[in-house]
């Protein structure tokens, strides 16, 4: 039973796969990009140096999804230090197969400009947005684990106290 509970706990803490089904924070909302409209979402929020998952939807002007485009993402740090990252976003990398996704290794803290370029049968277009990237320090997980430990300890203490007082009370 202990093993099963531990397994459940571990499963609960497992992160969802890269390129989540739900887009995350909307960065571009139907931005005109040549013959296309482009929407883009990033996660996690806040974006950190641990990596940013970018999901992209390429659409026709009527909003219908374009599934045969070649999507390339360029991430450029606005500070002088840092390296430009250029990667393809693919539908295979996204659990939602109407989107294109890519995991961007944004290693430098600060502002980044992200350029999304789509190339397809109707032509080519691109759209940009800027975002901030914070340092990844693992504090989120530490806070989560600490909160869970405090909650379990508090519940245990409460149960013990109530149980003890009930047992002491004569029937």
């Amino acid at each position, binding site marked *: 039973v202990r093993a099963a509970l531990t397994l459940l706990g571990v499963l609960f803490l497992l992160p969802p796969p890269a390129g989540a089904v739900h*887009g995350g924070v909307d960065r571009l909302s139907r931005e005109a990009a040549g013959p296309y409209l482009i929407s883009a979402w990033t996660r996690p929020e806040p974006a950190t140096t641990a990596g940013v998952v970018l999901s992209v*939807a390429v659409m026709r002007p009527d909003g219908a999804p374009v599934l045969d485009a070649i999507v390339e993402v360029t991430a450029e740090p606005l500070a002088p230090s840092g390296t430009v990252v250029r990667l393809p976003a693919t539908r295979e990398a996204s*659990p*939602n197969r109407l989107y294109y996704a890519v995991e961007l290794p944004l290693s430098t803290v600060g502002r980044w400009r992200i350029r999304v370029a789509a190339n397809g049968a109707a032509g080519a277009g691109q759209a940009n947005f800027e975002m901030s990237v914070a340092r990844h320090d693992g504090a989120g997980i530490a806070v989560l684990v600490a909160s869970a430990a405090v909650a379990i300890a508090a519940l245990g203490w409460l149960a013990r106290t109530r149980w003890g007082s009930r047992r002491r009370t004569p029937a």
Partner: protein
Amino acid sequence: MDPVLVAVLSSWAWRPDAGLALVLLAVGYSVGWWRLRRRAPGGSAASVGRAAAYLTGLLTVGVALLSPLDSLSAMLFSAHMVQHELLTMIAAPLLLLGNPLPVFLWALPGSLRRRAPSALARAAPLRGVLALILRPTVTWPLYMVTVWSWHFPSLYQTALRSELVHDLQHVTILTVGLLFWWPVVAPAPRLRPPAPYWSRILYVLAAAIPHMILVAPVALLRDEVLYPYYLAAPRILGLSVLRDQASGWVLMGFIDGLVFASTALVLVARMLESEERLALRRERVALTRAGARPHIPLSE
């Protein structure tokens, strides 16, 4: 086949945490059910119907959270409402109809199984907590407030933007769904005698009315996008954002109405059955007292 449809149908949300938890629950229930059935072959605690209800409930949770419906719910409000309805209106009552507690007890090793019921002994704190939160006066408002709060635009959009908040949304609505259906289905542990049928019927109908009152005006909004997050998503199935929004509310009202009404009908049938049984028993007692030989079979 339409490539958009193919893309939608291949958008499975592989979540190892949710998927494996569902498998673990299915295996645990099956082991307990098998042991209980071997022990008491004709018993109602491990009937085929109960197992079918529980496993269908788990399957419904799987369809809601892991199937392409989850991907669709990021693009269509109506798909998201179907997902929520599957969790609260279908999966929750089915899981409770499986009467899981005694079955899971039988999945435990012998020593633990013998000790576990003490957690629900008269003075045990868990019993006090359960008795409090399973009161209809608690479960009903808790369900209403939780489900409706999640549909406030700011909270709803936060859930769409954050995977963690979205998971929390699904966990809470499934939990309050289970709590809501608890007094209706009355599974173990039965900490107090089950509520009479008439009060269960009122409880269900009372839940249907605010849903109808709230859903109708929101569904009729024709020019206000409540959840602008969906404006960024591709349009599929020929639905505009406003049309999708209206369809979502209508679907929600329709499914709620259907489930609440059919539950009320089942409860009315059960109430009539039980009253008939009671009348027959009274008649038999009266006949026996009068010295007449009852012509009513003893095992009706």
